[in-house]
Structure formats: C-alpha cells, structure tokens
C-alpha cells in the first residue's frame, strides 16, 4: 500500500462546459457582491451568456467526436452526454429568458436566483456524464437542492413555501431510498463504478433478492425525479406553487436529468438485470400514464394541468424502457426514443410555460378560465399555445408526434406482447390526454374572455425570444425530424449493443 498520490489526469477540454458554468456561477457571485441593487439586471444576462458560452466547448467536443473517459470510467464525455448537456444548457437558457422579467419585476432575490439555476444546471451536466454511483448521487443532489430552494423562491408566498417544502421533503425521502439501494448495490458488487457493477450483478442467471431490492430502490429514487406514479405526488403541488419559470425548469430540465440518470443506470449499470427493472418500469409507466392523464382531466389550473400532463409524458418516456431489454435493437431504439422525446418535450413544454407566463402577466392567474377569449385579444399567443398543446398531444406537424412516434417505434421494435400492450396503452392515453389539451384549446379559441377585458398583452422581449425559439423548434422538428435525429443518431450507451 503506497501513499503516493497520483494526480488524476484531467481532460480540461472535456470538462470545459462544466467549468464554464461553474465559473459563471462564481462571476455572478462576485458581480452580486460588488454591485448595487440597481445593477442586478445584469445577473440574468451573465447567466444567459454563461450558459450559451458553455455550448461552445460542447460543439467542439461534438466535432471532435471522441469519447473521453476520465476518473477510471466514472466520468464519460460521449455523444450521449453532449447532446444532453446541450439540452440542459439550452433549457437553462430558456428558463433564464423566462425568468428575466418575472424575477426582476417580482422583487425576488435576483443574483442568487441565477446562481441557483447555474448550480442546478451544473448538476445536470455532471449527471449526463456520471458513470459512477457516487457521482450520480452527488450530481443528483446538486441539481436538486438548488431546485428545492428555487421552488420556494417567492419567500413571502405561502404557496411557494409549501411548494419548496414538499419538493424538499419528498426529494429527500426519495434520495434516501435511492441511497439505500445504492448502498446495497455497492455492497453486492464492491464497486461504485457502473461499468463494474454490470458484470457482477449479471453474473447469475437470475437475480437475488438483494440485487432486486437495490435496483428497485435506486430506480424508485429516479422515478421520483421523473415524477412517476406513485412517486409523483409532489409534482402538481410544487409546480403550482413554485414561481412559473422555476416550474418550467423543474418540468423540463429536472425531469430530463432524472431520465438521463435512469438511462445511464439502467443501460450501463443494471443492463444485465433487465429482468428486474423491465416489469418495474412497465408498471410505473402504465400507472403514470393513466393516473397523470386521468387527474389532468379534472384540473382547472393550467399549470397544474401541465404538471399532470408532464407526469403522463413521463409515463410515455418510461414506456420504451419497459421493453428495452428485449434485444440490443430494442435498447437502442428505447435510448434514442427517450432522448428524442426529452429534446422535443423540452421545447414544447418550455414553450407552453412561456405562454402561461405571458398570459399571467395580464391575467395574474393560471386558472383555465382566465384563458377564455385569448384568441380574440392575443391570437399570436393562442396559436403558439395551440402548437405546443398539439405537440404535447402528439399531433403532427408539431414535433410531439415524432417524439411519440419514437416511443411507439421503440415499443414495437421489441416485438413482445408486453411491448405492444404498452403501445396500446400509450395510444389510449394520448387520446385521453387530448381531452384536456383540447379543453384548454377550446377555452382559448371558443370561449369569451371571463371579464370582458380584451386589451392586448404586452409580451416582453425575453419571453418573445423564448417563444420564437420554442415555436420554431417545435414546428421545424415536427416537419423535419431529421434535424433532431441528426444529433441523436450517434448516441450510444456503453452497455448497449452487446
């Protein structure tokens, strides 16, 4: 046993995006410390620029194209990680855009808010590359803890407090369960490295109860993160109570991070034990779709509706995982379909929240009724919202159809009965889902403004920018899905394809 410490080789190019985001955080901290109240507006710009700048090394890494493995396999920068990092950065950027006016006008803590966003985005980026239980755990906490606080950012608002507390408590419970599972996995395999875990838990033909327990617990931890039923209970409350941009962030980026972790864990670490997690995911997926959609049918608040819709969407995204183990092809299909879904989901859901934000600037409400007559005084917003809702419902030519198509494709590619049954469940649910999307659309297009106030809405530039971005992406991808698949095509995860 030597005590000579070998400095680990660090590939700074590979870490550059993370470093840039961290640096931006520090810069923000300094800017905050050395400027007065009246210059706080700069925070959002700095945060936004930082997030965009971080895309540059991502682009260069992608251009380079080599897979970079660090820390003994604990941290991997490959196409998969890059695509998702880009997604996180862009979603973060859009959230910053959405937040700019909201936070500035609401007299909330501005500089610190953007620091929270940056910290959380950093956690997500780490998550995309983490291939080690410890890294995954730490990344999860880094992305979660700032998020807990952001949810409670409107400090004097009881609902916001409540949202933060609930999110925090449920998050901690779930991460405790997950940690226990991780400890068991570590105990069984003696390693925290996913690449080492896989062969060990796959050594036996069938699972042992302990491994099963570990896998189930870990998966449940992330099922919470992606708000799968029955671990979804926090989501509607938190979404409703949290500041709307934060809600958008949680609904999109945070959920995506959960899926990223799940994908990494299942495909790299737990791949050989798909006999355990496939049925688990199957049940979660089906339950998530049905419960999410059914409850969403009864919602009167748009954000809450979007929350439940987001739960249901998570169910769709989980679905391919339920059959991913059938064959390498199915696994590959599942991986791609989920990543594509995440990317498209980010665009359409962020867009939907952007519209809600814009409308709420006038109506000061997110109740469905307040959307009445929107078409008469804000036709642009109405059309945008309709595009997003159609996209969420999976109706061409908005991009959502391609996302859902990918899900169907992945389910069908397995060629198993359970896959087809789940595909039919997805199909049924997309119909149920349209009932509430359509209802909202109906209110916007076909009903009258509740108070007869039809003065137009002034949409600030930042939200306009966010809308242009998301609408554009939603439509262009819907018509030319090749643009998405161009980026997602090269994705592989290590254990896939063996």
């Amino acid at each position: 046993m030597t005590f000579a410490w070998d400095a680990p080789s660090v590939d700074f190019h590979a870490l550059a995006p993370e470093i840039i985001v961290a640096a931006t955080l520090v810069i923000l901290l300094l800017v905050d410390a050395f400027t007065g109240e009246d210059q706080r507006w700069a925070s959002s710009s700095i945060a936004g620029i930082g997030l965009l700048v971080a895309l540059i090394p991502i682009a260069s890494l992608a251009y380079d194209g080599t897979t970079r493995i660090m820390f003994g396999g604990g941290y991997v920068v490959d196409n998969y990680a890059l695509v998702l990092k880009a997604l996180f950065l862009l979603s973060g950027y859009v959230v910053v855009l959405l937040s700019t006016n909201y936070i500035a006008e609401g007299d909330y803590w501005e500089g610190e808010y953007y620091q929270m966003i940056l910290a959380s985005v950093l956690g997500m980026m780490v998550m995309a590359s983490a291939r080690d239980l410890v890294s995954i755990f730490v990344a999860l906490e880094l992305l979660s803890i700032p998020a807990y606080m952001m949810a409670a950012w409107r400090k004097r608002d009881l609902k916001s407090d409540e949202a933060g507390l609930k999110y925090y408590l449920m998050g901690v419970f779930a991460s405790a369960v997950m940690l226990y599972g991780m400890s068991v996995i570590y105990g069984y395999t003696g390693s925290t490295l996913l690449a080492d875990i896989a062969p060990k838990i796959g050594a036996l033909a069938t699972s042992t109860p302990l491994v099963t327990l570990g896998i189930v617990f870990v998966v449940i931890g992330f099922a919470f993160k992606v708000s799968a039923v029955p671990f979804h209970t926090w989501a509607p409350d938190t979404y409703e109570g949290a500041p709307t941009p934060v809600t958008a962030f949680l609904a999109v980026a945070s959920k995506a991070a959960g899926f990223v972790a799940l994908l990494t864990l299942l495909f790299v670490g737990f791949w050989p034990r798909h006999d355990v997690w496939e049925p688990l995911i199957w049940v979660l997926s089906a339950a998530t779709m049905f419960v999410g959609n059914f409850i969403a049918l009864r919602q009167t608040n748009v954000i809450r509706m979007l929350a439940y819709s987001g739960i249901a969407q998570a169910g769709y995204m989980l679905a391919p995982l339920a059959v991913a183990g059938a064959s390498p092809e199915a696994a590959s299909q599942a991986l791609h379909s989920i990543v594509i879904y995440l990317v498209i989901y980010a665009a359409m859901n962020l867009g939907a929240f952007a519209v809600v934000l814009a409308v709420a600037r006038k109506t000061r409400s997110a109740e469905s009724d307040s959307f009445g007559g929107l078409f008469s005084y804000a036709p642009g917003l109405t059309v945008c919202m309709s595009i997003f809702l159609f996209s969420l419902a999976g109706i061409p030519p908005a991009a959502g159809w391609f996302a859902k198509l990918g899900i169907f494709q992945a389910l069908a590619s397995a060629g198993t009965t359970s896959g087809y049954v789940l595909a039919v469940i997805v199909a049924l649910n997309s119909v149920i889902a349209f009932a509430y999307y359509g209802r909202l659309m109906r209110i916007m297009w076909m009903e009258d403004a509740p108070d007869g106030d039809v003065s137009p809405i002034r949409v600030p530039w930042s939200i306009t920018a966010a809308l242009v971005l998301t609408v554009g992406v939603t439509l262009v991808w819907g018509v030319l899905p090749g643009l998405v698949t161009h980026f997602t095509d090269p994705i592989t995860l290590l254990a896939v394809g063996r």
Partner: protein
Amino acid sequence: MLINQFLFLGAILFCIGVYGVLVRRNLVLVLMSIELILNAVNINLVAFGAMWHATDPANLSGQVFALFVIAVAAAEVGVGLALVLMIFRNRQSIDADDVDLLKG
C-alpha cells in the same frame, strides 16, 4: 462479526426513520427522522466498505461514499431547516399538516 449484524441494524434504523417521517407532525422532527434514515444508509456503506476492504485493501469506496453522504446530509439539513424557518415565519407554525394549500 457478521455483516448482517450491521445490515440489520441499518435496516431497523431505516425503518424507524421511515416511521418517524410518517408520524411526526413537527417538521423539525421529520428532519431528525431523515437523519436516522441517512445514518442507516451510512451504516450499510461503512459495513460494506469494511467487508470489501477486507478482501481488497484498495477498495475504500464504501467509506468515501459515506463521507459524501454525510456532507450532503449536512447540506440537506441546512436547506431543510432554512425552509422550515421560512415556513414558520410565514405561518407561525411548523405543523406539517398545516401545509396543505396546494392539493388536488
């Protein structure tokens, strides 16, 4: 010693913690119960770490993992208490049951 001694201790502690978070209405007590759960996990990690260390002296992951968990637990408790304080300031109560504005 048997590995299971520690593991069962951990399991018992875990479940007591779960019981605690479910029955305690006072939010500070809920946070305390969370600590029980995290400690249970740490017992597991350390015990497993010791077990693997015994076979492979280079394997220290269990202990390291436990250290990370402790650090994160500290952060979590800090954040949790901050949230509880804020709740208390706004509502003059830290009864978990009072926090139910959002539902449905």
